[in-house]
């Protein structure tokens, strides 16, 4: 792998940047691997990378039906935070946060992780009580957080309408300074390049169409490019996970919904943090290019069409303009949708299944980008050892039959 550095940049400038090495190979599928990862999104690629780097499992294929990161990984609003309420989820997201903090160095790829802080705004007394409870829980778990009043919010975000005249007046917010945003494409590409360098085969335009299962043990997958064998298969397919599970004869408690986002035309820097509001239901940040990145809610019905509905766009922009009257005339440039796999308790599934050797990592729903490094890391550990990593253990599929749910609707239901 050609290392990226400031020196490299200067060196390549001399040849007009025409001699950069390809970031990863385009290998032909082998007959068999030790581990197959289905799904080349951030989570799948991170899993492959940590398998190779931390656990010495390098005979790995990532099988992606489209292009790397073309699923929700490159469709999300890139908010990264770890201020979840319950111990189990706090552990998982904070594990990811710690990895984010060293990620660009670790994979020698600038993922533009920017710890510009995230505000979760409260507009009612109950919002504020929930915020206080959550921030206290966060601190007990060693996660940074503060409760701000309206004045504190106004100081951080001068352009926000924090007056009493607002239709839903801002009463305060939770503030996680270590939270922020990262560049989603770079996360997929960075993990891909680093995994490839360690020998992982990235097979693009290859669709898994079925699982090869004998006596309750998986031993490979069917694809449109022929069968590929492996006794350990990790399925990391986000919105398509229900369909994949059905191929293996497994049930998952997931529903796939469209979730959309939009970006505005680029404008001068006006917003240097991330603002999210569950109550008016919108969230916003400004990218380094200057465009406002705005997230919407899911469409309430099941759907696999990667587009969102117009009423949802309208509601979202109402919420944004309610909080930021200054944006009322900004024009929107692009709008798109991704298919999110929502889980009844708003927590992911990292689990073994009744098919031996077949694991699922899914159910991240509207908020899994922030977990990408942590999810990949604990999932890789689980695949390598055949035993779920302690942080992943509470997220088993069994919890929907035992009743040990991890209800994160407060921290995750609307906010991403």
């Amino acid at each position: 792998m050609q290392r990226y550095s400031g020196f490299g940049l200067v060196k390549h400038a001399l040849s007009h940047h025409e001699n950069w090495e390809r970031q990863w190979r385009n290998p032909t599928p082998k007959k068999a691997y030790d581990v197959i990862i289905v799904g080349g999104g951030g989570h799948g690629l991170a899993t492959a990378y940590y398998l190779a780097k931390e656990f010495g499992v390098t005979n790995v294929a990532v099988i992606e039906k489209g292009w790397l990161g073309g699923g929700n990984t490159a469709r999300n609003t890139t908010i990264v935070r770890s201020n979840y309420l319950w111990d189990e989820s706090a552990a998982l997201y904070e594990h990811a946060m710690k990895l984010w903090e060293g990620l660009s160095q670790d994979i020698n790829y600038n993922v533009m992780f920017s710890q510009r802080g995230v505000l979760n705004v409260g507009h009612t007394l109950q919002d504020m009580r929930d915020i206080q409870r959550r921030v206290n829980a966060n601190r007990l778990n060693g996660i940074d957080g503060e409760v701000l009043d309206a004045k504190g919010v106004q100081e951080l975000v001068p352009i926000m309408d924090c007056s009493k005249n607002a239709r839903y007046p801002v009463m305060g917010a939770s503030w996680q300074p270590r939270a922020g945003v990262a560049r989603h494409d770079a996360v997929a590409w960075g993990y891909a390049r680093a995994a490839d360098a360690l020998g992982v085969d990235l097979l693009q335009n290859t669709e898994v169409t079925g699982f090869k299962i004998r006596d309750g043990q998986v031993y490979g997958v069917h694809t449109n490019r022929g069968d590929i064998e492996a006794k350990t298969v990790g399925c990391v397919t986000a919105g398509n996970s229900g369909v994949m599970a059905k191929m293996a004869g497994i049930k998952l408690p997931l529903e796939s919904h469209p979730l959309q986002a939009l970006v505005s035309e680029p404008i001068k820097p006006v917003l240097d943090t991330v603002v999210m509001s569950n109550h008016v239901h919108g969230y916003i940040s400004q990218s380094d290019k200057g465009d406002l990145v705005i997230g919407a809610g899911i469409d309430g019905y099941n759907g696999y069409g990667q587009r969102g509905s117009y009423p949802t766009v309208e509601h979202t922009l109402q919420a944004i303009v309610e909080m930021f009257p200054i944006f009322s005339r900004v024009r929107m440039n692009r709008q798109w949708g991704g298919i999110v796999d929502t889980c009844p308790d708003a927590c992911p599934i990292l689990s073994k299944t009744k098919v031996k050797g077949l694991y699922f990592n899914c159910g991240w729903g509207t908020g899994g980008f922030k977990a990408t490094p942590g999810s990949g890391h604990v999932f890789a550990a689980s695949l390598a050892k055949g035993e779920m990593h302690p942080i992943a253990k509470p997220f088993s599929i069994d919890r929907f039959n035992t009743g040990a749910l991890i209800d994160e609707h407060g921290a995750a239901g609307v906010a991403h």
Partner: protein
Amino acid sequence: MFYIFCPYCGEHREEEEFHPKGQAHISRPADPEATSDEEWGDYLFFRDNPRGVHHELWVHAVGCRKFFNITRHTVSYEILEVYKMGEQPSITAEHYAAQQGAASADKERNASQAKHQEGVRA
């Protein structure tokens, strides 16, 4: 934007008057005492999540407030039928696949005929 026919109001109304309520035809376990944890979990949390034909419950929330069912395609989003509570769907995944199969067979036949005719012309 959906334009949905409410079978109770008897007219088409805009999507925003309605709320989707998830999978239709889920019945509560008849004998709760005899229901295992597994069955309760399945009843509460596990849903069909098909890429294709889906039967779902909707409510005309700001209209007549009645519940009814829709059969809808989850990729094209096409509403295939609307039917009242207590009724059964007439379009199912199998039925739909058969119909599509027939349609594409038709298309193929037409296409091969077209090719054939083209051949004649040449």
